[in-house]
């Protein structure tokens, strides 16, 4: 018994020589940080305090050289100790993301207080202005954004790309994939999802628009889309599921991408008659061609931006072959040709006539 008590004590001391005073009424756990580029290469960090309904909210902003310095300076300008243990969202300005965010991500990644389930969001516009405006009408504005992200993260519904710190860093450190993050357009009044931002290493390279976003969601991880709109053909497809097969040929010069798409036509405002089997077949062919074209364009966009968010590089790995280096794959990826095919299994809106 003595041994157990002693070893338990030693274990505890080994774990934490100092017990933090986190008395809940004396601290202010923040749930979001907004990071933008400050003057002279500095960082401009903002947060919202306190997360208590009944107290007036305040945005704390610091212009600092280091991320942790910002965290420390918050404490000096607020009557409660600002704690980052409940940090759930980091909003990074698009311009800052283009310059590289490795140091920021690493700081967040190595902080034992900060959970790896921290959502990374790229914002196009002033997030601080948005929050300042929201304070007037909402009790805890940041919390609603957290619920939004959490909702779309659940079961990867395919409506939005939601990425947390762990997933971002995993892709960052993998030689065969590049990180992605959601990008939102922000102004004083609105917080609107724009699409997915693609990173090359830690730098934001490009982002895709809503139309390409649908294709990306479908082919990324065999996704499910509740609604797939095709304005070019005046069609809305519902409950779309996709099954993607990717294959690189032996010399890695051609990528064959086969997408099996299942869904049903839920809305049609075109001129054709979808009750007619022949005309429906034509529409099927049109959808197929359009998707093949759009997917090829998306892949080419990725290729041109030198990013591989679909983790195509992993197809080069084999059980008995030496894995190639990141540079080798990058060179190969720049020259890969695409052969995209779609298989459609579409249920019509109504019974069709032969």
């Amino acid at each position, binding site marked *: *018994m003595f041994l*157990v*008590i002693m070893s*338990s*004590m030693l274990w*505890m001391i080994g*774990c*934490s020589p100092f*017990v*933090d*005073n*986190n*008395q*809940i*009424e004396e*601290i202010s*756990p923040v*749930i979001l940080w907004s990071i933008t580029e400050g003057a002279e290469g500095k960082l401009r960090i903002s947060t919202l305090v*306190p*997360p*208590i*309904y*009944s*107290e007036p909210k305040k945005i704390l902003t610091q212009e600092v050289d280091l991320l942790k310095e910002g965290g420390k300076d918050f404490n000096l300008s607020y009557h409660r100790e600002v*704690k980052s*243990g*409940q940090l*759930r969202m980091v909003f990074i300005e698009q311009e800052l993301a283009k310059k590289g965010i490795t140091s920021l991500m690493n700081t967040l990644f190595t902080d034992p*207080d900060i*959970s790896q389930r921290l959502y990374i969001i790229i914002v196009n516009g002033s997030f601080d202005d948005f929050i300042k405006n929201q304070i007037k009408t909402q009790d*805890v504005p940041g*919390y609603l954004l*957290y619920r939004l992200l959490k909702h779309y993260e659940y079961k990867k519904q395919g409506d939005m790309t939601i990425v947390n710190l762990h997933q971002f860093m995993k892709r960052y450190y993998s030689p065969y994939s590049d990180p992605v993050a959601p990008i939102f357009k922000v102004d004083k009044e609105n917080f609107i999802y724009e699409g997915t931002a693609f990173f090359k290493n830690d730098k934001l390279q490009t982002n895709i628009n809503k139309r390409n976003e649908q294709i990306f969601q479908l082919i990324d991880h065999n996704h499910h889309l509740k609604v797939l709109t095709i304005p070019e053909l005046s069609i809305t497809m519902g409950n779309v599921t996709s099954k993607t097969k990717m294959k690189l040929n032996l010399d890695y010069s051609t990528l064959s991408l086969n997408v099996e798409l299942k869904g049903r036509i839920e809305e049609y405002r075109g001129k054709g008659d979808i009750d007619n089997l022949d005309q429906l077949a034509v529409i099927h062919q049109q959808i197929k061609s359009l998707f093949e074209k759009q997917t090829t364009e998306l892949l080419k966009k990725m290729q041109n931006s030198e990013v591989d968010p679909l983790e195509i590089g992993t197809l080069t790995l084999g059980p008995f072959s030496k894995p190639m280096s990141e540079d080798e794959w990058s060179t190969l990826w720049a020259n890969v040709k695409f052969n995209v095919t779609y298989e459609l299994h579409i249920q019509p809106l109504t019974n069709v006539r032969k």
Partner: protein
Amino acid sequence: MFWKKLKIGHHFEKPEPQNTVLTIDSIRQILANMDDAEIIERRTNNDQMVMLLYIRTLIDQERLNESVMEPLLHCDLEEINECIATTKVSRIVTMEEGQQKLLTGSILLYEPMKNQWWAALLPNPLTRAIETSETETIMFGPKDSFSEQIDQNVTMIRRRLPSTSLKSERFSVGSVSKTEVVMMYLEGVTNPEFISIARSKLSTIDFDVFLDSSHVAAFMEDHYHSIFPQFQQSDRPDLCAFTLSMGKITFLVANTPFALTAPITFFHLFQSPEDYINRWLVASFLRLLRYVSYVLSLILVPIYVALATHHYQMLPMQVLFVLLESRTKLPFTPFWEAFLMLITLEIIKEASLRMPTKSGQVLGVIGGIVVGQASVEAGFASKILIILVGVTAIASFLVPNYLVTKSNTLLQFAFLFLANYIGMLGIVFGIIVILVHLNSITSLKQPYFAPLAHLYWRDWLDLFIRGPFHWMKERPEYLHTLQKWRTSQRRK
């Protein structure tokens, strides 16, 4: 002070050895100043002089007249013991025997001519009716419970186990109280080692007064400093009969309705008689619920203190907001808040035990509304803590063993201190200490933490769940019974 103690000690006189020959003068001397002591003289039909000595309050007066007085007056026989119409007549010689018989409800008969002493047992049947158990209430199943009459209690067990294998050995404990203890076991089933341990423990008890079985248990326990009882107390004859059939030993103690059972394990404290009445799935669910409740009653409030003091990160965000909201303006730290509320809860619990039943509702109103609601409104406690304290209080009553429920409080406070100083690590540390302690203690020299340690897989069928009876055809392995099987077909 020590010197004084020694000096005072000198004035005590050693009691005279009692095994002197019984004489009328010596008995008169010991009965002096006892107003309920009677010494009367009677002559039999053949003119024999007989003196009757008894303590009026201890004997059955009606039976005295019917079984002794009347037969004596009309007796023509030489030997007066043959005249008395009661079976329990014995000859006595020593002073010690005489005193013991007098004080346990016998009358002494003295024949001056022959200088012979007889004792006839006529105890006063002062008892209450067989009532429903109040401490171990069940919805279905047998309703009778033990009373203070030890023989009646033995009868209740014997009726349930009409077997000649059911042995009962009688002991007397307490130099003053002379409390009878009956040890019952199933010969051929119960491990003889347990019996000999129990026998030796009972015969070496040295104390003056035993008023309850828990006093006896305190002297028989292997680890009397432990907070966990090593003897199961129960006032239900059905439970005692069941445990006897498993191969355990039951101790009935005179003047108390609570029998003792041993050897037990920690897990027996969570078993209710109703477990063996309910359907096995229902019983298993309820038993698991009891374990969960026990753990909750120990660590729910300490977890609150640990989270609110050290680990705000572990709280779900929405709960954190609610907690922040409710704690912002409180004057006490989470520890003092919890400490004061738990102390108040204990005061209410203790008061409810002492108060008459009809006042119980008033106490509930005072406890629930005044202490709970008002303390929140006055800003002395957070709403969340009040909820947790309430859940803790209710959860603590789910454990069937009352002594365990009581011991919860102390452990809870220990956890509270640990949680305050080192947070969740403190709680984990406390749990480790309890587990180590449970593993180190024994009941009648048998491991208290069996069948977990030592590990007896087969006994797990009646551990966290209550398996179907069809699967429990073997007696518990940790009891090392002489008969393994409970069924006649596979019995060897």
